[in-house]
């Protein structure tokens, strides 16, 4: 399904500019649990601006309108033996490409295959003056002009609506296996980091419920050799496991009703010594720790800062303001960038104040 709604989006932004009435940029709402309370009444709906504009399997590039669903893109790529990079998190079928970039979260492949931003080659966007900007391009290497395309990762609509995106896509590996090991948490953290330093085709490491899961992708002989080196047991039905992690449909994400915290730490940070026991899961080869907690204590926050990381509420709690995680200088740098794109603070102003 393909519709070009750019004219209406431009009109809506021009109207906002004229009336100085702020608007919110919204995709499918797959992250409403995080953002809904901060949206304006006037919403620029991006889901109607959808469809794949250009897909060249032999170029490894795909250009799509921002409202295109990730599901559609995955299907089209799958038909050509290709895939989206880095297991972009996908919580519902209607989730859009533009939304994924505006949120900027990456999936389990992050430490090995790169973040979403690493696969963005170009974007078309609208700034706060209602002007269409085309930055980056459709080629693998491009260093002309500032890198506006990747800058938009994590911008949550505050710099302007993303109209279209060109992605670098990857061939699907021939085979995938997942090895698993029963380990104590600190041993698992060290083991996954050691494995990641070995020349093996590892593409994800997750620790959950006393078990380390290591995903390997490549051709059959390479995987056999890696399995011989690493030992461990092969997981039955690994696709299902990784899909459940990517879509947050794994029992870990479903069964616990407490607020969920997204904790980013150095990959080698040992088990977090929080005041109370909390159910948790380690992703990103140690770099991402999902924690369930009704409330983290002051000393928990301090501990996480001391190991070199930060924590933000993900679900079931008042969202953490990114600005609360920044130094005043970092915050001011962000505000300057925001002003450069949206001088009248028209786009998602409440979220922008967060920055």
């Amino acid at each position, binding site marked *: 399904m393909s519709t070009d709604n750019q004219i209406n989006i431009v009109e809506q932004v021009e109207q906002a500019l004229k009336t100085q009435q702020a608007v919110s940029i919204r995709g499918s709402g797959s992250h409403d649990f995080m953002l809904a309370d901060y949206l304006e009444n006037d919403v620029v709906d991006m889901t109607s601006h959808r469809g794949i504009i250009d897909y*060249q*399997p*032999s*170029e*490894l590039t795909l250009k799509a309108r921002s409202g295109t669903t990730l599901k559609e893109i995955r299907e089209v790529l799958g038909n050509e*033996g290709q895939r989206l990079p880095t297991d972009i998190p996908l919580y519902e079928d209607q989730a859009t490409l533009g939304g994924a970039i505006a949120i*900027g*979260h*990456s999936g389990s492949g*992050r430490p090995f295959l*790169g*973040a979403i931003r*690493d696969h963005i080659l170009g974007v078309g966007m609208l*700034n706060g003056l209602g*002007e*269409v900007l085309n930055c980056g*391009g459709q*080629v*693998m*290497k*491009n*260093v*002309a*002009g*500032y*890198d*506006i395309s*990747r*800058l*938009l*990762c994590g911008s949550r609509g505050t710099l302007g609506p993303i109209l279209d995106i060109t992605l670098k896509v*990857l*061939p699907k*590996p021939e085979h995938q296996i997942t090895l698993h090991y029963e380990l104590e948490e600190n041993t698992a953290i060290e083991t996954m*980091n050691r494995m*990641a330093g070995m*020349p*093996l*085709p590892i593409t994800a490491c997750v620790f959950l419920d006393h078990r380390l899961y290591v995903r390997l992708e*490549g*051709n*059959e*002989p*390479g995987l056999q*050799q890696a399995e011989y080196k690493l030992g461990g047991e092969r997981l039955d039905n690994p696709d299902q496991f990784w899909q459940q992690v990517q879509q947050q449909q794994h029992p870990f994400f479903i069964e616990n009703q407490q607020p969920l915290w997204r904790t*980013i*730490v*150095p990959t*080698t940070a040992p088990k977090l010594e929080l005041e109370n026991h909390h159910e948790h899961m380690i992703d990103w080869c140690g*770099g991402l720790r999902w924690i369930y907690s009704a409330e983290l204590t002051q000393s928990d926050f301090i501990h996480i800062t001391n190991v070199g990381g*930060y924590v933000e509420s993900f679900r079931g709690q008042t969202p953490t303001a990114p600005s609360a995680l*920044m*130094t005043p*200088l*970092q915050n001011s*740098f*962000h505000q*300057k*960038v925001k002003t*450069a794109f949206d001088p009248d603070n028209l786009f998602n102003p409440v979220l922008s104040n967060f920055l």
Partner: protein
Amino acid sequence: MAFDPSTGQFEFQNWDLEKVLSDLKTELPAEALLHKTAQLAPYECDGLSAYRKIPKMVVLPETLEQTQFIVRYCHHRQIPLIARGAGTGLSGGVLPIEQAIVLSLAKFNHIKKLDPLQRLAVVEPGVRNLAISEAADPYGLYYAPDPSSQIACTIGGNVAENSGGVHCLKYGLTVNNILGLKIIDSEGDLITLGGGECLDSPGYDLLALMNGSEGLLGIIMEITVRLIPKPESAQVILAAFDKMSDAGRAVKEIISSGIIPAGLEMMDKLAIQAAEDFVHADYPIAEALLICELDGTQVEIDQQMSQIESLLKNCNAHDLRLSENEAQRALFWAGRKAAFPAVGRISPDYYCMDGTIPRKELPDVLDKIAEFSRQYGLRCANVFHAGDGNLHPLILYDANQEGELEKAEQFGADILKLCVDKGGTITGEHGVGVEKIDTMCHQFHSPELVQFHTLKAQLDTNGILNPGKAIPSLHRCAELGAMHVHNGELPHPEIPRF
């Protein structure tokens, strides 16, 4: 105002050398302040030596505090400041301008931390690219981006230019291999950007913004780089083709097969001949040569290599040569890596271009380049990173012949415009600098250029950081008249024309 974001125009006042010297001496030792002509000469150009200008002054701070002092001073006095690494850049990005101080970061050359378990290193900007991989080597790790100048170029410069290299296709550019930065902003404040030891950070991706910003948005003082495991093995196959179009098709077939080679390079006959005469790399002389490297474990490579061999044969490749050991692999690369100096031996001067195109356009673009070559009466050797569509046509000319440099530049500009028209870009990895400032007008329209200038103005209110580079002023584009007419509208309608 020194800098006008609505147009990108800037103007700086003359300043008194003695006064500035005495002011800076309050925080810097005399030997860190160069101002005599003989001392200044090495700073008159970078790797693009066709453009030269002796700077008025060069400063060589040794500490972060000294550097912050210099930046604050220049901010308050509105003196332009040009940060410089090893000066190996190929686009004139550190060419001095009138009234500028050159800030050399050469003394910041320490690796501050290397954590093999975490697979990262924290380094100062003046550390050489190759030195990082050398330091990581005992742990079986390396830093992936490998620009051809890697023995000399520094990591700070790599970040400023978002440098590439022959292994970009599989391992990415500098931007994909950097985890965090500490920068000094235009007012002298030190700011941490990106995650550093973390794989994410709150807010916008400012790390990406700094990569490739060519010294216009901040001074890079510390870089956290990602290290990756050295592949167990690597092997190169050479393939000769009688037709360029067959080689182009082979590139397409390889990528479509689902294999991502570690390197996929192509050379044309003139480049092959020059390289072979220079380093005797055992290259077959043909219309086109493809160099394909695979890495991984040996069993992985063996399987993929047999796939690639049959793909190549199907595309009419001949003289297939597979490296049998590390020495031979190095030899096969030696020819490619020496291609530029090799071409330098057959012509008094050459002009290296850096456009990128979608791979499928390769045969067509090569035909057009050959046509330009006849039209301008200048030879052109083609060397390219075929895997990612990054072309390096080398235009051969003789600067001593009146008008030849201008002809070569015009020829180069035509190639870059062609790249843009084919959906590509004027620069894949060398940066814009001063060299491609005019062709930027062909790639970007007025709204993007104004947005770039506005962003710069927000982050550098006095416009002191490397002014005049990377982003052309709107006046410049308008004067060139080289803009495309978009949807029947004249470009830059806000600028008066006479």
